């Protein structure tokens, strides 16, 4: 049983015009076994939340804290956060030329577990994860994300989630750019992960489409760097019907 607590998180980024505040105090708590969805219009701070928790150097944490089972995540390096049990599936997974998926996954698994995975089961595990994402076993010999289609990149992220098995997964717009078939495959993968014991999920999405396949326990609506409203799955249904308009303050 684990808990990920985000308390009054404030984040800014450097721009040409100086520091720009993006998150203005975000508070939410996820426990293992829960699925939270973050929804919101473009620029509301959804992705910033994800990358700040993972420790991307572009984001300055100006206030608040992030605790994983009471440990201060913000004081950890990027790889320490992953070893503590966090996983971020990125909207735009990065290409790493010349490094095979197999080598990458084995290196990551070794770093997470503190020992190399057992050869006997490892290849089977990787091929199984790829197969569940409709990716050919030959994929493990390709360079990380290089030359993958948009959909293949997203499915490869979920294959990593499957193999690396973190405590908490943050999925940043995993559904963007997926056709309906790929969306179903990806959703199945996410549901398989959630069904495991003591896993927490933070699903960030712009559209309600994926929530037909991955059922959230809690839905948060982000507007202008804050949570405007939190609620149950019915909140997503309302957004589907009426959009974000109700949450966006009328411009003066």
């Amino acid at each position, binding site marked *: 049983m684990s808990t990920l607590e985000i308390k009054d998180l404030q984040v800014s980024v450097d721009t040409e015009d100086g520091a720009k505040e993006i998150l203005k105090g975000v508070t939410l708590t996820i426990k293992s076994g829960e699925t939270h969805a973050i929804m919101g219009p473009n620029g509301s701070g959804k992705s910033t939340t994800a990358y700040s928790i*993972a420790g991307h150097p572009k984001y300055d944490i100006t206030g608040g804290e992030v605790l994983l089972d009471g440990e201060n995540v913000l004081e950890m*390096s990027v*790889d320490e956060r*992953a070893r503590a049990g966090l996983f*971020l599936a990125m909207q735009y997974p990065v290409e*790493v030329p*010349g490094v095979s998926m197999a080598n990458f996954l084995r*290196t990551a698994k070794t770093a997470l577990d503190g020992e190399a995975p057992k050869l006997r089961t490892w290849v089977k595990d990787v091929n199984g994860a790829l197969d569940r994402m409709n990716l050919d076993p030959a994929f493990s010999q390709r360079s990380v994300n290089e030359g993958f289609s948009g959909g293949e990149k997203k499915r490869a992220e979920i294959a990593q989630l499957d193999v690396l098995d973190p405590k908490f997964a943050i999925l940043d717009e995993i559904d963007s750019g997926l056709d309906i078939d790929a969306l179903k495959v990806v959703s199945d993968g996410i549901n398989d992960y959630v069904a495991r014991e003591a896993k927490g999920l933070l699903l960030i999405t712009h559209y309600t489409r994926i929530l037909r396949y991955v059922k959230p326990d809690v839905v948060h609506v982000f507007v202008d760097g804050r949570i405007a409203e939190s609620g149950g799955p019915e909140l997503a249904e309302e957004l589907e019907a009426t959009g974000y308009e109700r949450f966006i303050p009328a411009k003066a």
Partner: protein
Amino acid sequence: MTAEVVEQALEKVESHLHPEGSFDVDAHEVPTGREEIWRFTPLKRLRGLHQDVEFTGALKATRQTEPGLTVETVPTADVRGVSGFVPTDRIAARALSAVAESTLVTVPVEADLAEPFIVTLTGTSADPVAEHVVIRAGRHSRATVVLRYEGTATLADNVEIVVEDGAQLTVVSVDDWADDAVRAGHRHINVGRDAQFKHVDITFGGDVVRNDTTAEYAGPGGSVEMLGLYFADEGQHIEHRLFVDHTAPKTKSHVVYKGALQGQGAHTVWIGNVLIRKEAEGIETYEENRNLVLSDGCQADSVPNLEIETGEIEGAGHASATARFDDEQLFYLRSRGISEKEAQRLVVHGFFNDLIRQVGVPELEESLAATVEAELAKNVAGVL
């Protein structure tokens, strides 16, 4: 196009890429370091190769394999310039005039040699050495020649390569010198009609290594691929000067050099010159240089240069990039739990692996990957 027409066209070129060459040493003044072709080179560390130092040493040649080709010693006067090579700088002219005998490697016409011919050339002292090697791949033959350089030496050499019509030749040069070696080398390749030449140019060791690699075409349809990989450590100077002279129509050239630099005073230079002559219609050329800077205090100079005298071509492009680690790549790897050092090691490994996979000689790819691994262990582990 008749031979005469070609000759006239050749003479009309006024590009600075095509300086007047000469076998006469005195036609080449002692460089001062201010000349365009010398401005990057640390002349003081060349041990007089560019001045008048006498050649008194020798390299020891050891043949590792004996596939079906001939190796003979011939009078230099009989073979010098067979590739169309005429020295365009003093070191090349001096090295060529200093030798009376040359080594001639001949791949017989239509021979198909599955096994690479591997020769190790070992230096045992700093006494200056001059060498002239000619490699001739006969018509429609197929072969791979590996020249491995190691040990301590002060070497000025010329390697002339003739790839006859329809032949496929791969030459692998490995500069795996001891830390104190100096080499100023020239390779000139003459690519026949529909012939394919591939050069794999690996540079790891040495204090100063400066290699000129130049190619021209004897007929249409020829192709040249040049893959380079270098790793400059503290204080090391590695310089590659490439020139592909598209002298015939429908010819191709593809050049990719990748290097890593590490440690105070590590300096690499890459000059990638391509000339597309008026008569070279329908050609395709691409050249690329990428440098990965692993620490402070390094310098990578990269100068691609394309001169086009006809617009009637299939394609011409170049790219040059010198960068430190890509933060996004490191973030991605680290977000999966991989430590910063390990992530950096993976990225460097991948940077070179990408190129090694294109070598196309399986037994070499393996040993190259191992050498990169060893360089990384030796260098990256210490500083990163």
